[in-house]
């Protein structure tokens, strides 16, 4: 009787641990081995065109930042960057995500090859001027962390390319529904990692991913 009970407990514990394992896999990156080196994977659908593998890449974009300067793909030439979507008066997840973005910003303070790109999805309210005030109150420098606005369609479309959901939702507090994910993009415009920007532990793991991508450069 006692042994049966013990076996049941052990099996239950193993099942429990296994479920934890799959749980963490959704928020941490699974590594790949390429040419004998451990690397972050290239995320997204791949296609084979004329015998060559074509990976998902971030298309051309053009937005305006808090200094009213144009921000394009060229802004991040030979650099990697972390992406998120927010709006300045977001009452729910954004403040949590901004706290975590700031952790990354501080952690990689001396790393010129890493930049940050936050897209506002409330283009009516978040003018470049408002974004500038927001950035100043947050205490960030615009050459390292771009807060951008632009055409609404283009912002929602590029969210899709970063595998982030962002759309209008009158039932959501503030009028927008969006995910709090942070996305890591490499110098070749490919998505290489992500984490949940609302979860400090997920962001801590993400720091290792960022370092790994920097080491690859």
């Amino acid at each position, binding site marked *: 009787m006692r042994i049966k009970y013990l076996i049941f407990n052990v099996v239950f514990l193993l099942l429990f641990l296994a479920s934890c394992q799959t749980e963490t896999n959704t928020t941490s990156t699974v590594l790949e081995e390429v040419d004998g080196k451990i690397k972050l994977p290239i995320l997204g659908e791949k296609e084979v065109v004329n015998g060559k593998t074509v990976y998902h890449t971030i298309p051309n974009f053009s937005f305006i930042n808090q200094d009213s300067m144009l921000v394009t793909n060229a802004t991040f030439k030979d650099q990697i960057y972390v992406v998120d979507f927010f709006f300045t008066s977001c009452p729910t997840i954004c403040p949590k995500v901004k706290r975590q973005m700031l952790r990354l910003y501080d952690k990689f303070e001396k790393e010129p090859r890493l930049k940050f790109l936050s897209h506002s999805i409330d283009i009516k309210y978040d003018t470049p001027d408002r974004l500038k005030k927001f950035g100043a109150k*947050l205490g960030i420098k615009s050459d390292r962390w771009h807060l951008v606005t632009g055409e609404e369609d283009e912002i929602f479309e590029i969210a899709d390319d970063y595998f982030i959901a962002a759309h209008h939702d009158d039932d959501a507090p503030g009028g927008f529904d969006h995910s709090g994910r942070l996305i890591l993009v490499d110098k070749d415009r490919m998505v290489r990692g992500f984490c949940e920007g609302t979860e400090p532990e997920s962001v801590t793991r993400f720091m290792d991913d960022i370092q790994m991508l920097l080491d690859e450069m």
Partner: protein
Amino acid sequence: MKCKLSLLLFTILLLAIACTHNPFAQGKLLYENQCAGCHGQDGEGFRDLYPPLTNSTNFKADPYNTACIIVNGLEGPMVINDKTYDQRMFAISGLTDVQITNILNYIAYNWNAEIELPLKNEIVKERLLKCAEDPKVY
């Protein structure tokens, strides 16, 4: 049997300790769900964006006014502890006057020591009636 009984007693003891340590448990829960995102888990605020609720000159001057800020939101610059904050806060809907009283008491008890406790539900109700017609920020 003995083991089960002692476990039960231990649990009750733990609960009792947990409860005596926080007289405004409902307020804590509501604060953490509704307010902590911006104002911080410990009411510390966030950089110069969101004002702190700890030792807040504004809160101490008139804690009941915060009930109206919660239900109506707030827009425009505001000076708190000699610093200007200018971040739009949306109205928070769906809270009852009792829940708001609990939140105010949690903020007062934990971070604004000079306030005489508890803050009264009747006064919160009165204030909410007065500011019900004021414009809301959404």
